[in-house]
């Protein structure tokens, strides 16, 4: 089963990448406001979120298919 000498390191290094990314997400404050993060996706296309100036330029163009 020499293949295991290949597959196990591959799998472990994938796990290590995952762990690294997890620590990155912890350190970059990804989990500081979980309930806000969950709620925010509900608002993005129902309410205008652009600043007034940007909204003005936005109404003059786009979105007509």
């Amino acid at each position, binding site marked *: 089963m020499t293949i295991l000498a290949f597959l196990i390191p591959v*799998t472990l290094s994938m796990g290590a990448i995952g762990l690294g990314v997890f620590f990155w997400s912890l350190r970059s404050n990804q989990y500081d406001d979980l309930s806000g993060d969950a709620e925010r996706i509900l608002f993005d296309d129902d309410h205008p979120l652009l600043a007034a100036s940007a909204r003005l330029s936005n109404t003059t163009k786009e979105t007509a298919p």
Partner: protein
Amino acid sequence: MMSNLTSTERARAMLITVAGVLIGLTMAAVGRNDPMGAHGWIVLLFCGVLFFLVAQTLYDAEPVEDRSTSYYDDPTKVGILLALFWAVVAMGMGVWVASQLAWPDLRFDAAWSSFGRIRPVHTSGVIFGFGGNALIATSYHIMQRTSRARMPDQVSPWFVLLGFNLFCVVAASGYLMGITQSKEYAEPEWYADLWLVIVWVVYFILYIRTLARRNEPHIYVANWYYLSFILVVAILHIVNNLAVPASFSGAKSYSAFAGVQDAMVQWWYGHNAVAFFLTTGFLGMLYYFLPKRAGRPIYSYRLSILSFWGIVFFYIWVGSHHLHYTALPQWVQTLGVTFSVMLLVPSWASAGNALMTLNGAWHKVRDDATLRFMMVAAVFYGLSTFEGSFMAIRPVNALSHYTDWTVGHVHSGAMGWVAMITFGSIYALTPMLWRRETMYSWKAVEWHFWLALSGTVIYIFAMWNSGITQGLMWRTYTESGTLRFSFVDTLIAMHPYYIARAFGGLLFFAGACICFWNVVMTIRRVPNHAPEADYPTIPEAMEPAVPAAE
């Protein structure tokens, strides 16, 4: 559609298609004595058509509006339509394959229509054509919305989407010509595999670049699921397809591994393809579209993140449960069982989380077939992950392995979970994307829902019955210690279930056809809907996440 591309982007797209034409021509010339030559012509035609589409508009006016104030949805729209096209083709193939098992004469005596050739057209068509296109399309939608940023450029999303479809076409046409490397769900030969690696790397880079542009500090959990899908599938694909071509002028290649080693690599790939292609990507869909449609945030966002990391760390070890009672060392099998059972925890966490989100919105589930699709998907996700953990246990596997029970299990996942969540997402997405008031026919959605659900249930029950009957008949001995039933006896016992299976599949297929029709009619007939703001925000503006006045 082309009018949204800048002239630099049009030039770049033309260069890419020219390169594709040249590659196709080379393949056709070098492989003229081999089916690979036919693939060369297909590549040439595919890239040639795209070349003319771009070249026609090369000197048209450039877009004038500020693109950063809108999302780039053209590739998402095409991706949805391609997904539905593949759904109809591949599910139709599935009905045919199922019918061949009940009535073998339906092969019509041609080589290309034999079971071994059209079955992978069905499986790859559904998994990669339908599922893959749906994943790519929804990921484009979700990564932009949750990041509140537009994609960084307008060529690479097209390159990924169309390049992936070229892979699917080459794969499916190759099977019909008899080109296969006989690895389940990884049948395409070396040149198609190399092409997919290029497409996939561009996909990953596109995703990371979009996230890097985000105007929202938090990366929503759906993005994690999609990212794991892209990254892990890339690694699995590369390792499992390590092969040496017999010659560069032909399709045939030989795997870098042999015997049980090769089997281990194949199922390390195979089960993780189920995990990271058919599960995590679709969980990304679930975690975005279900809360959106229900109008409620996910029940426990913390749990959704925990179950993500749980799935990522557990799933990767379970592949060896496909090789119980083989030459694979016992401890490797046991490792697979252990992780398979542990996997139940993050899987049920996700399914329960989705269902708990619906608490307080059950009246919507009752009235809205789109949300019901998502609810049923979560239920089937819970059911099939439980079944999977159960079947991975060695004594259960002794009965279930090599029988139709496995086929039933796969379809409870593929029809009940993957296809249901995809259809739900498509129905939620279509009016939003094309700026329509509603779907063309809500009755058709309702019809589709009940056809899909009854088709799935009929299919699964037929295969449970058939599989367990088959498994028990195989292991029945007479008093003198010989086998009680011949193989043909089991076929006769299974025949009625095979008819039921083909019928269940037919219902499901009919539902998919209705869906395609409904989406096309929505695009063509339903009046425009004045869009609510659906565009990226600007980081400097410091807008509140929740508007102060409503």
